């Protein structure tokens, strides 16, 4: 009996978790394998699992200065848009969480609706707007566009986190004579920091991988990773090996980034335990 219940309680869930991990990893593993193959090996029949690996693709990619500029551009844009998104979104979320005012529901819904428009309808107006404002092909321009795209997620998720925080601490600080803003800044934000970080990570990832606006609003000065990798999709051939090598290289910083912050993810996610 004990063994059977242990099977269901521990081993079966663990098995499922590991299977899911394999499912998540397999395409990435395939990308990594492809990056070690020559062009001919990449298209072999049957597909090769064991072969003489070559580091040529990585060498080629590392020596290409473009890859580093894609990385830099993406880092600036993703980092900038997650910071700016938090900066603008947190106050908004706080108000929505704590204060009732007329039209609060409508305001929240309007914010949500900004994510609903299909991009194709926004491309030309954005192009025209940004050209007129001189924001074309600038990092700040793309940052603004990404903040626009993702602000609804920032606000709605943070709203949830703020709502979970105990009101008593804030009320105590107000009684101490702090202004509303001081309460927010000195008390609420630090308490919510882990939640802020987890939302920040999400937005960073969403911005890092955004393609359409980066395409339309960027040009020669601003080429982010998705745009850069698309250059491997050539006219007649896809440079599988270089594409895979670049993708592999570029995911390493992301993995590191997630590893560093995933501590906070857990803390952020256990915030409610403050009750």
């Amino acid at each position, binding site marked *: 009996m004990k063994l059977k219940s242990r099977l269901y309680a521990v081993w079966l869930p663990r098995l499922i978790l590991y299977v899911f991990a394999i499912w998540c990893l397999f395409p990435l593993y395939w990308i990594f394998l492809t990056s070690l193959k*020559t*062009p*001919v090996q990449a*298209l*072999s*029949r049957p597909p090769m699992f064991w072969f003489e690996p070559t580091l040529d693709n990585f060498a080629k990619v590392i020596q290409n200065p473009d890859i580093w500029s894609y990385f830099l551009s993406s880092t600036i844009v993703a980092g900038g848009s997650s910071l700016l998104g938090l900066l603008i979104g947190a106050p908004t979320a706080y108000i929505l969480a704590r204060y009732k005012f007329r039209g609060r529901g409508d305001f929240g819904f309007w914010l949500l609706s900004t994510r609903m428009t299909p991009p194709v309808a926004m*491309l*030309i107006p954005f*192009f*025209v707007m940004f*050209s007129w404002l001189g924001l074309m092909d600038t990092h700040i321009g793309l940052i603004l566009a990404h903040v626009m795209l993702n602000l609804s997620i920032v606000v709605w998720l943070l709203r949830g986190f703020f709502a979970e925080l105990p009101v008593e601490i804030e009320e105590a600080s107000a009684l101490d004579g702090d202004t509303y803003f001081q309460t927010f800044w000195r008390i609420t934000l630090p308490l919510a920091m882990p939640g802020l970080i987890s939302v920040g990570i999400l937005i960073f990832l969403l911005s890092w991988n955004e393609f359409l606006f980066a*395409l*339309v609003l960027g*040009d*020669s000065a601003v080429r982010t990773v998705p*745009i850069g990798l*698309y*250059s*491997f*999709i*050539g*006219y*007649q*051939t*896809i440079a599988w090996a270089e594409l895979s090598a670049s993708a592999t290289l570029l995911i390493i910083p992301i993995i590191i980034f997630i590893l560093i912050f995933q501590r906070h993810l857990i803390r952020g996610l256990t915030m409610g335990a403050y009750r």
Partner: protein
Amino acid sequence: MTLAYTMNRRSILLGAAATTLGVSLSPRMGWADSHAAILDMFKSADIDWRAFDGETLVVGAMQHPWADSIESALPIFEELTGIKVTLTKQSETEYVAEMPIKLGAGSAEPDVMMIHALGQFVAAGWAAPLDQFYEDPSLFDAAWYDNDDMFAMARDFPTQPDGENYSMSITAEAQTLFANQKSLDAAGLDLPKTMDDFLAAAIAMKTDMQAGIVMRSKSDGTAGTWPCGGFVFSYGGEVIDADGACVLNSDEAVAGVDMYGRLLKEAGPLGVGNYHWVEVLNDFSSGAAAMGCDSSNFATDISDPAKSIVAADAIYGALPQAGSKPIKANIWAWQAGINANSTKQKAAFLLLSFLNSKPGCALSSANGLATVRNSAWKSAAFQERFGAQAATAALANLNSGDAVIFKRAWFHPKAAEILDPWGIAINEVATGQKDARTALTEATDKINRALGA
């Protein structure tokens, strides 16, 4: 490639080009000498090359053999004219999505651009008319340029219904048959010459390990339409008739599409309904298909041992014939033009005519580019890069093509709305969802409504 004396890539290129143009180089000639020889070939033209000294130009291009091969010619242009050129390359998807937006908003850059939908670009007013520059003696030297050296189709393609030229042809490719000699030998067959033989051969060579034939048929206006076009034309059909109506539902067109679909249904690989040029090239290069039918430009990659395991076994031929009707392989010439909003149009014209001139084409064909000039195609350097047998087959197909009926469809202002339903119909026939007549009748109705509206 090792040589007895050190030569860098550029000088090899120049040497090849020089040889192309009949200038003999002695091994004692250094890089500087061959370089000077090349420059002289340009300087011999009665053109004021330095009229725009100090100017800058932006070239917008796709990741394409043309863009790759002109890269090495650009420094020579800069030296000749003093104009600095920036070449930007994007993937086809990016380029096709971005250009309408940029040009639609009146952007002045790029100055020179590849044009993937000529009818569209001209109707929208994005391409600058070029005749004014052709007629300018300080910009253009007709005798030196030698238009007759160009393929007839390359000369025909840019001319619009109003008689004006809004672009220049920069590459020439034709629908070509490729086959794996080993598979042919194993089945005891020769390269098929008629459509019926073609079908029989494809079916005969189809095994569990290898498809008989591989061609594009993804449900898209850019996939199956071009290769299938050759079939439609060769069966005597047309896409758009002289009155501007779609006639894909004619008996001839239906027969052509039906044969295309049968080849794929009965001898094509599993999942051929999703095949674009990438899959066609990949499958043939990895030996997964005995035959293929697509652009002559594939030859460069198919015959490259670094990219293809069938490099040594590939042979090329003409499109098979349908009964006794004339073969009309489909043809294509990439176009490049000048942005109508560009402020440097004359300088841009200098660049375009530089690249398309005899020495210019010699330079890029030495890189393996299928240029638009007979002289370049016949050069030893090109034949070696491209493959002599492939070049012969491609030339034959190039000459069999009919530019008039091609242009009526592909260079129509609403070309996208013609090709898209047709591409979907081809896909439906190739995957067995519909028969050719039903699919084409529906497509024709849709197209005519879009055109008439």
